[in-house]
């Protein structure tokens, strides 16, 4: 069981991710933008962060950049939830310090497979 932070401004997407991961026994917290996610990460220590790219207040890429500077988050896996295979966004996320990505649309099985992949 891992402690996972799901970050997405879309509540339905967030619940889908959270519901799926909870079903697999993980402990999931949710945040609806990058700023809120950073606040949460300051309080709890997460084993994995899944973050959407396009969000109000603070986007996912700025979030990754800032999270990487936080104590205890230099090596934590952070996956970007990108749409389509937009290579620019993937590279932008990677340059900011993201571990990898999961391309939307994904189904619960793909999500679980990817999460299993980073959690090892």
């Amino acid at each position: 069981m891992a402690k996972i932070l799901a970050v997405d401004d879309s509540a339905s997407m967030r619940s889908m991710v959270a519901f799926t991961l909870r079903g697999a026994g993980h402990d999931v917290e949710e945040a609806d933008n990058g700023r809120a996610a950073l606040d949460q990460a300051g309080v709890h220590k997460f084993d994995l962060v899944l973050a959407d790219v396009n969000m109000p207040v603070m986007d996912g890429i700025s979030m990754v950049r800032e999270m990487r500077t936080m104590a205890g988050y230099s090596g934590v896996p952070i996956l970007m939830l990108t749409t389509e295979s937009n290579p620019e966004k993937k590279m932008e996320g990677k340059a900011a310090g993201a571990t990898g990505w999961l391309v939307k649309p994904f189904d619960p099985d793909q999500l679980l497979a990817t999460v299993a992949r980073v959690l090892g």
Partner: protein
Amino acid sequence: MSKVDLAQFHKAFHEESLDGLDAMEQALLALDEGAEDPELINVVFRAAHSIKGGAATFGFNDVAAFTHVAENLMDEVRSGRRPMEKAVVELLLRSGDIIRDMLSLQMAGQPGATTESQTLLAELSAMVSGGTAAPVAAKAAAPAEAVEGWDIAFRPFDYLLKTGNDPARMFRELEALGPLTTTVDASKLPALADMDPTASYLAYTLRLDAGAKRAAVEGVFDWVDGDCDLAVTPRLAAAPASAPAPVVPVAASAAPRAVREVATSSEASSVRVGIEKIDMLINLVGELVITQAMLTQFDDGVDASQLEMFRHGLAQLGRHTRELQESVMSIRMLPISTVFNRFPRLVRDLAQKLDKKVVLDLRGETTELDKTVLEKIGDPLVHLVRNAIDHGLEGPAKRTAAGKSDTGTLRMEAFHRGGSIVVEVGDDGAGLNRDAIVAKAIQRGIIASGEGMSDDAVAELIFEAGFSTAAATTDLSGRGVGMDVVRRNVMDLGGTVSIRSVYGKGTTFTITLPLTLAIIDGLTAAVGSETYIVPLVSIVESVQVKADAVRSVVGGGELFRFRDEWLPIVRLFDVFGCEGERRAIQDGIVIVVEGEGTRIGLFADELIGQQQAVVKSLEANYRRVVGISGATILADGSVALITDIAGLVRLQARRKAA
């Protein structure tokens, strides 16, 4: 097939998409008026982007395909490749409408694409430079390699671990493909004292003894592309395959999707509640528990020395209960902005269509109303706004001639007044023409003459049933619905609507609504051993009627003279089948009530008093009963039924017809 049923997220997706579309529309309207805030463009882009992502995830493919093109158009604007022109705004506004329709269709389990959406999609595609973005090219299938294994040279750069990737995990992934032999090159490893624990110094030579696909092997490394030196070399089979490998049928990806279980589209709607309201509730319940604990100590009775404390406890209990009630009620309250939001678009479209200049002045948007009231107040407001723009406000030429600014103002305002919410719709247009109204009312046979009628009384005539008829309506505000329907809708919500008009200066409609439908003010009346509650808003007057003022009509009905009209008497014990104590008309009381524009007299034993009643649904706990809108619990614990005046009026009309 996943065990997670995605249908459970459809409703949430639909709701948030509608919110997104509203935000998109508002941003587009602001942009249309020349606002130059880049965040507005982002709002529009994000809305389209989120809807597309969600639609694709939750299987609304038609919506996803359509929104994809709208998003591309928005992306061109966002990246500065295209100016935010009128034509773009127009097209995106229409796209928003279409997406809304498509979502409803798909939610209902139907295909989302319609002729309309296809037409607009073509327009959108034509505008997006280079047509629709080329669909993401499927990865070119690598030529099948007759490999029996792979040699992989992998040297992570020193920062690789800081990206959250971990070679050990990647090796486990490779192992899942087949037997793996790992050789570590530790030559770069520094002395322990110089070592940075977060850096990686090792290089690996990996040998995978399995004929896995190149994509599968390289896929393990796709996240570290650029963060390492990587060479993946196939080890070819010693003897080339004698015959081409039989074509393995591709897994039928085009197989029909498993039919999704028809989601029980429970119409149970949801309310989003601010966390501070929840905290307030929890806090109050905590207080209540403390008070309850304090009162428990008086379990064995109260002696004189404790009386003060006991009273104090009771007072506290009373206060907390009241606060809790208010707090719970506030959960059903939503800001009127949820209804007001649709008007900027409506006003813009109408003004454009009629060649009029109109500015909309929205005020008091944070005023909160009961959710049920909010859902039902939209239509009457739309009607008033259409009327105001169509008939009230003049065109620019006429306005200038009248010495006014060429732009008309439409004001919509919500505010609290006493225990009610007031919503006003006012324009600075031509106002009502008294003579024209009087003439029309006489023609329709509503009044005989306008002599001696005050201006207000004349204005009230437009609410009379039959005043506006099809002949008087235009395609805009008409729709065969008159102001009488507006009034009836508002009355159904327990509210009132009035009009104030000054010829040449403008017209203002004032709608007064109860704060909530969950509590009503009512008059309690006794009928035998039963108690009935009559909503105060429906009551005209209560009178005692003398026996000689009653006329029997053929067929069993009774009428009595009330002012200058004859009203039917409805004996409550008759309707509800209980035993009345008083049967002679002069012994009891007649409550004159009005519902759906018709007055009747309800006959009861006596009036008990006035009180607030918390409405409990009868339908939810028992079943629907004609003439009863709900029930409530009285101070003594007994149940009182709340009369449904409109229902009783209809019942009376049927009895008369029978």
